[in-house]
């Protein structure tokens, strides 16, 4: 039987760190609510530092012990109790999110700061508390080992993400937020329906126990289909992506970075968890091919529509639609490798790297677009002259982020696409490699258009509308560098993502 996620009956050393990873951001939310305005910002920044330390400590525990970190809440073992569990996949996502949120926090100090003598406003207060709420919910998605807890975590993520969209308060952003919320609710109710069916059939919601109990039958197929479609609506995979571009492009730059870089990764991670660890023996190769076909359509449509955008932020948002497509190419590749009795690590690591490099690159690009908007007073791509003179560091960051999206070495995007392409060739699914190459070409077209326009000299007598603080530019550049140098992860001696995941038997095998 596939049994990749057996939960040990004890809390492992360092298990308490998982509780802290979830609890600390939410304590920060509550403290921010009590202290208000300036206090919320201070609390948020302190929590960002503490959370990063916790994430590093969890990673350290995981690598040292070489096994998944587990915490049993109240000492009750599943199915009676609820377990928190962090394997290699979860820990890498925890770390990546902590780094990206840290970068966004530093950047947002300027946009959502409240200098002394200025009246406290509502938007900064809401931003800082919701930033922590997004973070806590994401951490809960990564470490939770129970389908219902995951449902609550996904809903929390939605409730924290939707107000970030409408932070500006204009009718158009409110409309985007409402559209996003309706898509997300549609997704979560389908997910819940699937979870209920699974409970009815197998009497447990624990991921590890379910993985051991599920077998191919109509109720499991129905549950898997409902949950997958629900998660796709939340992840904005083509053709359920319609809510994403207006929502991500209309939000303030720092909020766009959170939404585009991080929030959509929560539901994607859960889809990976379900397909790779729970429904191993249930999903078939054709169904995985269908997912990847949607991903391929997303890559082509997203990139082509991005090329036609007149505004920088919408271009970046459509590029997110395309990059989400890459995230779903890993499913048939992992299934193919497993079916051939090979280690599926290449496909899984490729997908994971793609998620992380996109999170860092896209956050950097959205924040770079925000700086461009502040400097020029607009973000029309045709009119970007002078950006290179005014914001050299930001333009470099944008180009590095773009290079990672294209997949130039040594970026994280390069390594991710290399792993995926080699998995595609190993499993004789060359058409996915073709899609990735065409996608890379289209991506390079719009990145080069923006960079070339921005390199044009400014007209005579042009002055920036506003100057931006240096540390904002440094934060953007640091995130872009993270993404660009992520390809060096190939030098990492341990296969961190594989820790805690046993080699999974092939799809369709008993």
């Amino acid at each position, binding site marked *: 039987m596939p049994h990749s996620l057996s939960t040990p009956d004890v809390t492992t050393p360092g298990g308490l760190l998982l509780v802290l990873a979830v609890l600390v951001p939410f304590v920060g939310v509550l403290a921010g609510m009590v202290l208000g305005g300036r206090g919320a910002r201070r609390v948020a920044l302190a929590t960002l530092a503490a959370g990063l330390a916790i994430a590093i400590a969890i990673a350290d525990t995981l690598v040292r012990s070489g096994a998944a970190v587990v915490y049993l809440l109240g000492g009750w073992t599943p199915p009676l109790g609820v377990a928190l569990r962090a394997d290699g996949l979860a820990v890498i996502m925890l770390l990546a999110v902590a780094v990206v949120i840290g970068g966004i926090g530093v950047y947002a100090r300027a946009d959502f700061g409240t200098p002394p003598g200025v009246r406290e406003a509502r938007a900064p207060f809401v931003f800082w508390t919701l930033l922590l709420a997004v973070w806590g919910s994401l951490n809960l998605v990564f470490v939770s080992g129970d389908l*219902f807890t995951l*449902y*609550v975590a996904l*809903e929390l993520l*939605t*409730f924290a993400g*939707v107000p970030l969209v*409408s932070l*500006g*308060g*204009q*009718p*158009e*952003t*409110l*409309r*985007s*937020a*409402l*559209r996003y*919320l*309706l898509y997300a*609710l*549609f997704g*979560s*109710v389908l997910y*819940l*329906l699937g979870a*209920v*069916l699974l*409970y*009815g059939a197998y*009497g447990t*919601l624990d991921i590890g126990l379910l993985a051991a109990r599920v077998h191919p039958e109509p109720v499991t197929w129905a549950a898997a289909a409902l949950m997958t479609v629900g998660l796709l609506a939340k992840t904005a995979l083509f053709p359920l992506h*319609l809510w994403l*571009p*207006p929502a991500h*492009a*209309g*939000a*303030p*730059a720092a909020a766009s970075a959170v939404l585009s870089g991080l929030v959509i990764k929560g539901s994607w991670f859960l889809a990976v968890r379900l397909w790779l660890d729970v429904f191993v023996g249930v999903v078939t190769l054709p169904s995985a091919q269908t997912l990847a076909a949607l991903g391929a359509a997303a890559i082509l449509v997203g990139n082509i529509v991005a090329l036609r955008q*007149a*505004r920088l*932020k*919408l271009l970046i948002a459509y590029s997110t639609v395309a990059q989400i497509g890459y995230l779903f190419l890993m499913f048939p590749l992992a299934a193919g490798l497993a079916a051939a009795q090979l280690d599926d690590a290449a496909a899984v690591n490729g997908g994971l790297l793609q998620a992380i490099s996109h999170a860092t690159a896209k956050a950097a690009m959205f924040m770079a*677009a*925000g700086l*461009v*908007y*502040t400097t020029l007073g607009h*973000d029309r791509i045709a009119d970007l002259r002078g950006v290179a003179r005014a914001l050299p560091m930001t333009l470099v960051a944008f180009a590095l982020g773009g290079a990672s999206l294209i997949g130039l070495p040594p970026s994280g995007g390069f390594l991710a696409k290399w792993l995926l392409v080699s998995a595609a060739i190993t499993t004789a699914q060359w058409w996915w490699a073709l899609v990735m190459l065409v996608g890379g070409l289209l991506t390079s077209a719009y990145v080069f258009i923006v960079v070339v326009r921005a390199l044009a000299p400014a007209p005579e007598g042009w002055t920036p509308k506003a100057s931006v603080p240096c540390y904002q530019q440094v934060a953007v550049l640091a995130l872009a560098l993270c993404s660009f140098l992520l390809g060096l992860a190939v030098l990492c001696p341990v296969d961190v993502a594989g820790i805690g995941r046993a080699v999974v038997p092939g799809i369709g095998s008993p």
Partner: protein
Amino acid sequence: MNTPTLFGLCAVALVGVGLYGLIVNPQPLRKILAFNLIGSGVFLLFGAIARRGAAVGMGGDPVPQALLITGIVVAFSATALAVALVLRLFDEAGSVTLAPDAPAEPPDA
């Protein structure tokens, strides 16, 4: 037909009607109501499953009932958030429509 099956079929009907409404209706408020219909269907199904899974001498499986209450609270908060957004949209725009009239004009950066 025993009682849990009857309730299960009612749940299926609710989910179906709700899904139809959520997809077909253009007005946000009706979409929110449709979401609540689907939610009620799911909760009813969960209740039926609890009844079916009852052990000897017990009226029902307690785990789904505990989860149900959490689910209802979550659905309630979702509805409250959605209605608050609709009200705010009405205050700002004077009408409530989801028509994507001007997605090309992001008002802020």
